[in-house]
């Protein structure tokens, strides 16, 4: 079986600055994979390369065995890949409901249709409301997304990402800015909606990472220094030194 996502010898550099320096990674379908690493290691850049937000300097990304080079982000998205952003990236002037509904449109087959009226598609409305309920924003349903508080925007960000029902989901620090209890809730939610799907998550909160991930990769300075189960990674001295710091290694 081909991997859900296969990165081979991926490079990215800006001028002289090499950000991603040869990443090889295969993620099986249905796997929950976490990527951790110090700030500026290139995690978000990796996401950007996978989702074609930017083109790699060299190397390939394959989704379900299909090479993504040369595709536009929306084409990748249509292949069933969905991502969230580290810094909330929502439709500021649209209401929470509209935001979520937009996220559902393509996957529900509406495409560029100008012969359907959305008001007359109950399934759409119901699906959107269900997502809003899941991310606990029902009370803010009609509020413009730009007016939400920071954490509420983060929740909406996750809502947009999971709405389309993609089978490969990339989350970039989904719980940043959330309180502990919020975090627990969101982790549960993520676990629930990604059941049977492929998940890749970048996170600095180790509770989340160890809680959620089947396997973990550690990215340091643009290279993967370790990949393995949570236990393996935690025990890896290289990882402790480069990332977790001594304090964390013993914890949890």
């Amino acid at each position, binding site marked *: 079986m081909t991997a859900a996502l296969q990165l081979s010898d991926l490079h990215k550099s*800006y001028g002289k600055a090499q950000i991603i320096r040869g990443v090889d990674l295969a993620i099986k379908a249905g796997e929950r994979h976490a990527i951790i690493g110090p700030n500026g290691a290139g995690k978000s850049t990796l996401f950007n390369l996978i989702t074609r937000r930017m083109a790699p300097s060299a190397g390939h990304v394959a989704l379900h065995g299909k090479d993504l080079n040369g595709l536009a982000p929306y084409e990748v998205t249509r292949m069933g890949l969905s991502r969230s952003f580290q*810094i909330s990236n929502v439709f500021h002037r649209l209401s929470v409901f509209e935001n979520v509904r937009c996220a559902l449109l393509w996957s529900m087959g509406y495409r560029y249709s100008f012969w359907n009226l959305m008001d007359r598609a109950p399934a759409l409305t119901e699906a959107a409301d269900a997502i809003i309920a899941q991310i606990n924003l029902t009370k803010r349903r009609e509020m413009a997304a730009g007016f939400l508080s920071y*954490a509420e925007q983060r929740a909406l960000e996750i809502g947009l990402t999971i709405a389309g029902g993609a089978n490969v989901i990339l989350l970039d620090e989904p719980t940043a*800015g959330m309180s*502990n209890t919020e975090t627990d809730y969101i982790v549960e939610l993520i676990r629930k909606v990604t059941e049977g799907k492929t998940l890749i998550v970048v996170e600095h909160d180790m509770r989340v990472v160890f809680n959620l991930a089947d396997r973990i990769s550690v990215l340091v300075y643009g290279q993967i220094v370790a990949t393995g189960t949570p236990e393996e990674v935690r025990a890896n001295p290289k990882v402790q030194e480069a990332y977790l710091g001594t304090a964390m290694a013993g914890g949890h």
Partner: protein
Amino acid sequence: MMLDVQDLHAYYGKSHVLQGVNLNIQEGEIVALLGRNGVGRSTTCKAIIGEVPPQGSVTFRGQQIAGKKAYDIARLGLGYVPENRDIFPGLTTRQNLILGLKPGQKDGHGRWSLETMFDMFENLGNRADTEASVLSGGEKQMLTICRTLMGDPDLIMIDEPTEGLAPQMVQKVAAVLKEIAKRGISTLLVEQKLDIAMDISDRVYVMGHGRVVFEGTPAELKGRNDIRKEWLEV
């Protein structure tokens, strides 16, 4: 007394977000402001710095600052690190830092300089001349903190400084905050991560429903399960 906030109210349009906040900060003190998402902690900071029109009394070193313009307040020595990072796009890391300097202020004349910043966070030094909007999330976080420090404030309000930082970096920031306090700078820390906040702050306030519902030392808060249940957890 550095900062004294009495009966502070603030509105967004019709919604009454702050409903009488009282808090104060002494010289060299680190004070944490805790609370659930959306209770109005960020709004409190914004009201103090004047980004949101405040109603009530805010005194900084005995001087009333409620109603003053944000830039005048900042020039009095109050620094604010916003939660959204607000990195200025189109400018490089270095230029972003330079903008932290007050008008007329020269680099290296205050407690901090570009040098010290780059030493402290070498990520920033490596990317000094990169356009700042492409920095990684964590780097941006460091940059905002440093940018405000460049203005050499006597009191700094930091909104979620550790958000998006790797564990190592979190410890680094905590150390920096302690260092800041050592240099006699007071800090108002808005933090989500309880453990860190409890660890480094001298006193904590807990907010709920637009008011302060608890005030005390971290140790006291640890002992108050009821408060934590009701106001800090869902």
